[in-house]
């Protein structure tokens, strides 16, 4: 043993060190390390909760998933949700940060208002927006109608069915999610903007660069680390979307909001097919891992420049 070969005072320090990490490490092993390995093991079995036997089936669950139409739909829907939230959401965050960066009065108040939705639980967010999206009594349709009539647009205003039609359900969940999360990335962008030295802008101004030119040639390139970080984190976050569709739509209408994690939840906790559900979880993990490694590469490439 390495510990025993240490000089006495070192040996004492090592023992104290082990004692200090022990309580955390026990929980870490039990609730992180073991579940990660065990989850993969389960995915290789036909593991029904109530079943007496849980036979080993190799990669059969993964092969079945490749042919599973619902899983295909869930993957596509999750990709669609990411498409609808990642770039539009980051544009909103960046615009808000740019506005805040213009040294406005009451900056702290604006900042707090934009960040406020982030502290809410997904359940509270869903309940508020279920009412916002109500076809008959919702605030959104009410104000859209007001704007419609104010602008004297042709014809009668047709209420948007928001969560009730397969075409608009996912975009509605995306809009709600952008509102919920924009404040977080906004703060990161604002910190990035504040870190750009003022001299760069002054030099550009002397050279006659206009507002757009300064934004394209100074702000955006110098904001690259923040942009990469936020975009990839949003991508990872959106690939795990669950609560929104679980609470508001249950995956419907017509599977239009069935996401990967919701599908995992349903196969695991409604159908009790734990092996199959774990296979779904591991495919999601693989996808997230690709994004994470991509981020590491992009960020370290940046540092080497």
């Amino acid at each position, binding site marked *: 043993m*390495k*510990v025993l070969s*240490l000089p006495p005072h070192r040996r004492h*320090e*090592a023992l*104290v*060190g*082990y004692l*200090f*990490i022990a*309580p*955390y*490490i026990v*929980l*870490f092993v*039990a*609730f*992180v*390390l073991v*579940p*990660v390995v*065990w*989850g993969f093991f*389960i995915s290789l079995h036909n593991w029904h909760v109530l079943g007496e036997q849980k036979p080993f089936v190799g990669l059969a669950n993964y092969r079945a998933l490749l042919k599973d139409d619902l899983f295909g739909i869930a993957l596509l829907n999750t990709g669609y949700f990411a498409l609808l939230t990642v770039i539009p959401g980051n544009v909103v965050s960046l615009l*808000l940060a740019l*506005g*805040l960066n*213009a040294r*406005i009065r009451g900056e702290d108040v*604006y900042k*707090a*208002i*934009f*960040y*406020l939705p982030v*502290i809410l*639980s*997904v*359940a*509270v967010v869903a*309940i*508020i*927006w279920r009412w916002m999206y109500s076809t008959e*009594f919702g*605030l959104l349709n*009410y104000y859209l109608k007001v704007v419609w009539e104010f602008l004297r647009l042709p014809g009668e205003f047709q209420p948007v069915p928001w969560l009730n039609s397969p075409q608009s359900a996912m975009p509605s969940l995306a809009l709600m999610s952008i509102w919920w999360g924009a404040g*977080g990335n906004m*703060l*990161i962008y*604002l910190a990035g903007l504040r870190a750009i030295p003022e001299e760069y802008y002054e030099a550009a101004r002397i050279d006659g660069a206009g507002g757009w030119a300064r934004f394209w040639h100074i702000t955006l390139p110098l904001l690259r680390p923040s942009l990469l970080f936020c975009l990839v984190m949003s991508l990872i976050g959106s690939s*795990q979307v669950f609560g929104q569709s679980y*609470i508001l739509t249950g995956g419907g209408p017509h599977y239009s909001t069935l996401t990967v*994690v919701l599908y*995992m939840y349903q196969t695991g*906790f409604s159908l009790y097919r734990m092996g199959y559900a*774990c296979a779904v*979880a591991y495919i999601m*993990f693989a996808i*997230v*891992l690709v994004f994470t490694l991509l981020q590491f590469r992009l960020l370290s490439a940046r540092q080497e420049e």
Partner: protein
Amino acid sequence: MRWRFSPARFLLYLLMTFAAILFLMPVAWMLVMSILPEHEIFQPVPHWIPQEPTLQNFQELFKRAEEAPVLRWFFNSVFVAGTGTICYLLLTSMAAYAFSRLQFPGRNVLFFIVISTLIIPGQVTIIPVFLLLQKLHWFNTYYALIVPGLAGAFGVFLLRQFFLTIPKELEEAALIDGCGRAGIYWRVILPLGKPALATLAIFSFLGGWNDFMLPLIATNEIEMRTLPVGLTIFLGRYSMQYGLVMATAVIATLPVLVMFLLFQRHIIRGVVLTGLKG
């Protein structure tokens, strides 16, 4: 700064205020709806200023304690998030102290294993965690709601980074004065680590209060639900009684809202420092 009028700045304020109204509207509407009487909710024109503000929605809630024990859910949420936060701070600060200050074989390997799990999404392990909770006979207990959350690596990472910035000389002085390692941890590291501990405490409480997936799978008795999951049950039962549903949502929001208003600066700085989004 002197106030000078310029059209561009005027437009900026206009746009920012418009955005602020849009962002605030859903939350404000939840608060208003919770004090609207039933007949004012289903109106073609929204009643932003209630004609007859009432607390009847909140009173009504407590009459339904049998089917929807909102007070019990509130207690569960406070207890789970509060106890969880205290335990998490204690466990992770001890581990972070050892990882940042003590020499022992295997230290770097262990630390690397711990932080590399930061990239694993929680949903990946939720099924094995569920099966484990069943094996431990913890299903429907507070252990199931609290303990799995204590294993997350983020706190260890955050606190270790902070503890590394505390000057070593302070510790050496304490050692010479005859202070043991435990004494240093308790009397030097913890007091000096307060800013990082406070940030971690706030985010850990918010995380515990708002967590949805773990309480959803770790409990099925109505008495053991926390507020977020209770809310969805409530929504299923009283889907059309919107005043009641909104009153419950307000109860689930007020504690974190107050916390946000009190610790706003701290939270905003924490997000920037840790790149973490609530």
